[in-house]
């Protein structure tokens, strides 16, 4: 049922990635790589991860570690596999017919692709905020309470407390506290996205995956989300996929640069943007392609 949308994110013709006539940058993937390792106290340890949709490889041999309670940005041109990578971390790719992975993804030392893994439990520990705000057609309260309810929490008082805490964490409480039972679809785009973040926080996750959370928002709303991410990093690990290099530079602590399904460079953000070790990274961040 989701084949179409998911596949479109992968099958963008690779030829379009490099714009013509800027500089004859080779379209091939650089042989050079730089991956900072080891990382202190990693949440995720990704080992030789490859992802295929049918026969097409979307990710090739990715290995790096994601630090705890930090913001890790994943940047790269369209179709480089950043969203697909994000969806490997909570196994949302499983929902796509014909997807298949190789390698291992360890979450706190535990292989999330092991047969003993409870996928629904994993998705509560590692939850995803989508690019386009996707509130359910329900009330604000019911949106936030959705995850806890699916875990079996029924007591009204407990739910009330979770809803309030999550909305406060997402800096939305003051704007909606008087209309918790109004439809979520009446909120503005930025409010909807913060609602989706509150909804994700309500299941008490360890890791928040954010798939270009600001790309559908205006600059003011995007700024609010960025501030929010910085404040959330105190308690949560955040993996942020973004198109926007300024955003990555502003909010993240570590940055991974993906190109055509390969991890080209992974470094502390300050280092990656000031002293990129790989030529291809430099070309990308200086806008020579991408």
């Amino acid at each position, binding site marked *: 049922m*989701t084949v179409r949308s998911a596949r479109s994110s992968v099958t963008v013709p690779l030829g379009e990635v490099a714009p013509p006539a800027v500089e004859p940058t080779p379209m091939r993937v650089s042989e050079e790589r730089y991956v900072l390792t080891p990382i202190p106290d990693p949440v995720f340890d990704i080992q030789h991860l490859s992802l295929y949709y049918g026969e097409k490889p979307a990710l090739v041999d990715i290995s790096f570690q994601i630090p705890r309670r930090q913001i890790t940005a994943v940047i790269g041109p369209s179709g480089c596999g950043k969203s697909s990578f994000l969806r490997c971390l909570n196994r949302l790719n499983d929902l796509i017919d014909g997807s298949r992975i190789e390698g291992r993804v360890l979450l706190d030392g535990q292989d999330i692709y092991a047969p003993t893994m409870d996928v629904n439990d994993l998705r509560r520990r590692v939850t995803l905020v*989508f690019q386009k705000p*996707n509130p359910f*057609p*329900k009330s604000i309260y019911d949106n936030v309470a959705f995850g806890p309810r*699916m875990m079996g929490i029924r007591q009204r008082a407990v739910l009330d407390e979770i809803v309030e805490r999550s909305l406060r964490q997402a800096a939305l409480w003051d704007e909606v506290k008087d209309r918790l039972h*109004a439809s979520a679809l009446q909120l503005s785009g930025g409010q909807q996205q913060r609602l989706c973040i509150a909804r994700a926080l309500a299941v008490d996750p360890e890791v928040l995956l954010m798939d270009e959370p600001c790309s559908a928002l205006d600059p003011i709303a995007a700024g609010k989300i960025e501030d929010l991410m910085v404040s959330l990093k105190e308690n949560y690990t955040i993996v942020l996929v973004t198109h926007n290099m300024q955003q990555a530079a502003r909010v993240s602590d570590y940055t991974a640069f993906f190109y055509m399904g390969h991890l080209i460079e992974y470094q502390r953000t300050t280092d990656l943007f000031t002293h990129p070790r790989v030529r291809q990274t430099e070309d990308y961040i200086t806008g020579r392609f991408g």
Partner: protein
Amino acid sequence: MRKRTIPRWRAEATPLLGLCGASLAMALLMTVAMLGLIFSQGLGLFWQKRLVRLQLRDGSRWLGEVWSRETVPDPTTGRPVRRIALHHGNRDLWGTAFRWIDEADVVGWEYPPDAVRIERLAWGPAFGQPRRVWVGDKPFVDPVDVRDPVWQELFASVRQDRRVLQDVEDQIDEVNDRLERLRRQELRLRYRSASDPSAQAALQAEKARWERVYGVLALRRTTLIERLQQYVLEVTAADGTALRIPLAQITAVIPANRMGLGERIRLYARRYWELITENPREANTEGGVFPAIFGTVSMVLIMSLAVVPVGVMTALYLREYARQNWLTRVVRIAVNNLAAVPSIVYGVFGMGFFIYTVGTAIDRTFYPWMAPTPVFGTGGLLWASLTLALLTVPVVIVATEEALLAIEPEIRHGARALGATQWQTVRHVILPAAAPGVLTGLILAIARATGEVAPLMLTGVVKLAPDLPIDDRFPFIHLERKFMHLGFHIYDVGFQSPNVDAAQPMVYNTTLLLLVIVVALNLTAIHLRNRIRRLYHGGSM
């Protein structure tokens, strides 16, 4: 700027737009014309016209209501002739109730003030001038005037007696019902070959007791009827014949030529009320259609209860669970094409499958002592409703699938990303979001099912079934009962009736009621859909 190369009228498709407008106008016109016909023909039936007495050239006289006028070519000369359809009633005297009269033959035309229309339980209305009331062979009120308090008091007391009689008859009905139950119990005891003599004896004693009760009631009824039959109203018909009508038979005496507008409106309202609340009489051409309304509505409701879960579950499996491949495509095409199967085929299937297979199996398992009388092994409300559910399930499936398709994948994945299982996602996110679409499907299904007649004729509709499928007798809902239906009523009254002229306006009225019911059911569903929309989508949608 580049010069336009195609003419403006082609670029803007002006003629096509005109055609679109014309099509819309035509559709509107047809709807309005259809409704206009139904309303004008149906609503006129209950309006009390004045009674006219015609003196014809051949010396004969006719009293009645002008039903319609038309101009036809004379069969011999071919010249146009105007003629009148006169409803002269008194079918017991003359065999017919209608007559075409050439206007050229009419020499006298008057509205006698004392002429009345008499509504009665048999033979249709009578027209004439009331003379006197007889008790036995003595004149009791002579002369009689229907505006006189004497007559009104007498008529009121007769009516009261008739209500008492009705009560007694209801009681007899109840006793009959009890006896029927006892008979079934007896059959059951005998079938189980339980040679338990004490149970048998108790049953027999119970039966004997109720038979005695029946005897008492029957005697009471006979006495009441005899008393009621004593009062006879003598009416002079148009040709001078004395017509004697027992007061017990009369439901109303209407002095049509002496009524004011207010009285006419009240009479009109009362007649309409009778139509929708009373049982039919006179081979369904008179009286009300209440059992048919009740049958239609209960059938549609039971059908809805069956069609929504089946349709929704099918669509859910097809869209949410099944892998999308050639097989699901084939299933989808097959479902869509089911809608093209003639409804009578569904009727045959319903009869063969539900009645003869399922019904017979139920009878054999649960009611073996009733054999050979079928309980569920014959047409009934349940089987007719299920047959219609089969007929309409493709509509619900298609509408539900459309609704599911309209839900963005982000919503589904959003729920899964929060750790909801597929079922939880379906149950708490997908279904509520698709509910308005499901109700749209139900609305279409109701519209389709309410108008179906053919499959019902094979699965349980009958001409006359005064016993409603839901009543105050245990177990209150009798799904195995046969029932009446407005659509079938239209067919039966309009085309199977011996008295076509009297039936025609009834047909229009029944059609009108059927339309009203469809609209009412749809409005209910639309109201429900809007409430769900507000609930889940806020006021914005």
